[in-house]
């Protein structure tokens, strides 16, 4: 018994060590070729693929202790005969995995995203995990060197979404985050979501016409976020009280939401001549073919985000106040008038009842 157990244990250890040894060798074996900076392959289309792997980068990543074949599992013989397939992160990143690879439900939201939809459709350009998170250089999200660290997200997304990146980079949000280092300023994912990115035409998307207000309001209504930088937090409320805001609240898609006037990736403060809400650009912004064609500079004469309950609204405040007083006085006057009439009628009724009783007697 005891002998058998010992043999089993020893053979187990031996197996482990030999597998381990084999794998460790694998890294070095891989490096024989992939450790050469000049290693490259030219495909049929004439495109050059650089195949150098910097081991230092891998060692600095979260996968420092992993070996090549942990991810490139389809490579079984070296040199490999075929081009290895794309790495599938879910080999390790599934719930309850023994390696302790982080996995939360949020990652799975990717499956519903527009990116995953495109991957399923067979779009070769659609991103999977490693396209955003990096391949050999995967780092923790909070690591400033991570591809998905807040400051690096615009560039990561911009590798594919170049035009959007260019617009965002010069917008108030882009300059605030990337030039001034204001971490409260939004990166791509703050508006579009992270794993669950959807098309803006999808009603579930935070950038959908009727949901964008809530998305912008997340910061623009918050005193502790934009309030810190002296940005007016009243704009959301005044918008919601306007006809545009009420219509959006009840599901109208054809009225103006925040982005209709302020732009999307190219948002700039109204003082900037390139801004869509710069006073001279207002006629063009309001006068879009589906909105108010023929709009002129009159559209800019007066406050756009106006709160009739505040003195800063000027004459609008005073007229609103006048009507409030007028309505209250009309209401009060009529109630008094009616109450007086009712009083007299009850008096008359009592009088008649009394007379009737006297007559009966």
């Amino acid at each position, binding site marked *: 018994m005891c002998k058998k157990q010992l043999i089993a244990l020893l053979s187990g250890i031996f197996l482990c060590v030999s597998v381990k040894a084999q794998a460790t060798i694998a890294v070095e074996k891989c490096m024989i070729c992939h450790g050469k900076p000049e290693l490259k392959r030219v495909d049929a289309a004439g495109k050059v693929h650089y195949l150098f792997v910097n081991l230092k980068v891998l060692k600095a990543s979260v996968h420092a202790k992993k070996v090549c074949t942990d991810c490139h599992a389809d490579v079984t013989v070296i040199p490999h005969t075929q081009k290895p397939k794309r790495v599938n992160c879910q080999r390790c990143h599934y719930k309850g995995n023994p390696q302790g690879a982080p996995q939360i439900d949020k990652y799975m939201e990717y499956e519903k995203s527009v990116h995953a939809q495109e991957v399923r459709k067979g779009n070769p350009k659609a991103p999977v995990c490693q396209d955003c998170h990096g391949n050999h250089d995967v780092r923790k999200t909070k690591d400033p060197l991570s591809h998905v660290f807040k400051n690096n997200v615009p560039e990561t997304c911009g590798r594919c979404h170049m035009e959007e990146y260019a617009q965002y980079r010069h917008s108030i949000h882009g300059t605030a985050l990337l030039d001034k280092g204001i971490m409260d300023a939004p990166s791509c994912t703050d508006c579009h979501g992270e794993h669950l990115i959807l098309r803006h035409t999808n009603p579930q998307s935070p950038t959908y016409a009727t949901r964008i207000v809530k998305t912008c309001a997340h910061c623009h209504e918050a005193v502790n976020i934009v309030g810190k930088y002296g940005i007016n937090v009243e704009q959301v409320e005044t918008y919601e009280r306007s006809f545009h805001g*009420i219509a959006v609240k*009840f599901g109208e898609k054809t009225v103006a939401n925040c982005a209709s006037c302020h732009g999307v990736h190219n948002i700039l403060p109204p003082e900037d001549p390139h801004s869509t809400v710069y006073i001279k650009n207002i006629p063009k912004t309001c006068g879009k073919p589906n909105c108010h064609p023929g709009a*002129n500079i009159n559209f800019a004469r007066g406050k756009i985000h106006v709160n009739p309950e505040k003195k800063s609204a000027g004459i609008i405040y005073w007229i*609103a106040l006048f*009507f409030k007083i007028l309505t209250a006085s*009309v*209401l009060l006057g*009529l109630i008094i008038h009616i109450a007086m009439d*009712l009083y007299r009628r009850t*008096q008359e009724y009592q009088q008649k009842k009394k007379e009737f009783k006297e007559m009966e007697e």
Partner: protein
Amino acid sequence: MKKIGTIENGRVLRFSLHMRIQHIVLMVSLIALAVTGFALKYNDSVLGRFLLTIEGGMTFRGMIHRFFAVILVLDIIYHLWYTVFTDEGHRELMLLKPSRKDVTEFFAVMRYTLTGRGSKPEFDKYTYREKIQYWGVVVGVSIMVITGFLLWFETASMTVMPKWIFDITGIVHGAEGIILFIILFLWHAYNVHIGGKQFFNTSFISGWEDLDYLKKERPLEYKRYTGGGEGV
């Protein structure tokens, strides 16, 4: 068509068919306009949300509102034709002319209702109350129609007037609507249907009124119909 003042079976025709049609169209359109207007104005309250739901959402609410706005305008055109080009309409309008008598009537009524002394003044067909209501509606509806059309054709109106005037237009339209509602649905409805002879006076539909009641409430009008004499 029977003339105003026709007496049959102890009843007298007070409102001609012209007047009844105008009144019912006005009533229906103003109720519809008020209900669809409130849905927008009080959209953040339970009542407003409920109204919006039964009105089929924002787009349909707007369509109903503008449909009845057109009905109201047609009714106004009818009314203008009636008061200007018909003898009957002209006579009724002249009865609604504000006069010094209205002031004395008002004070007499106040004295009577507060102290019970004296007596009710001898009213004609339209007392100071009806005159205030009529002219109140004339002024109010005019404001509503003007501001309403400015808001309806917002792009055209904003190209000729600055945005801040447009904002004021919206505020006036909303506030004036409330005032009109108060005058009509609180005061006018009280006077006719609660403060009158019975709950829900049907005279606005039939046009007829009991002579006995008229003799007591509108002695001058009664005298005009009966030629000053008693019992016809």
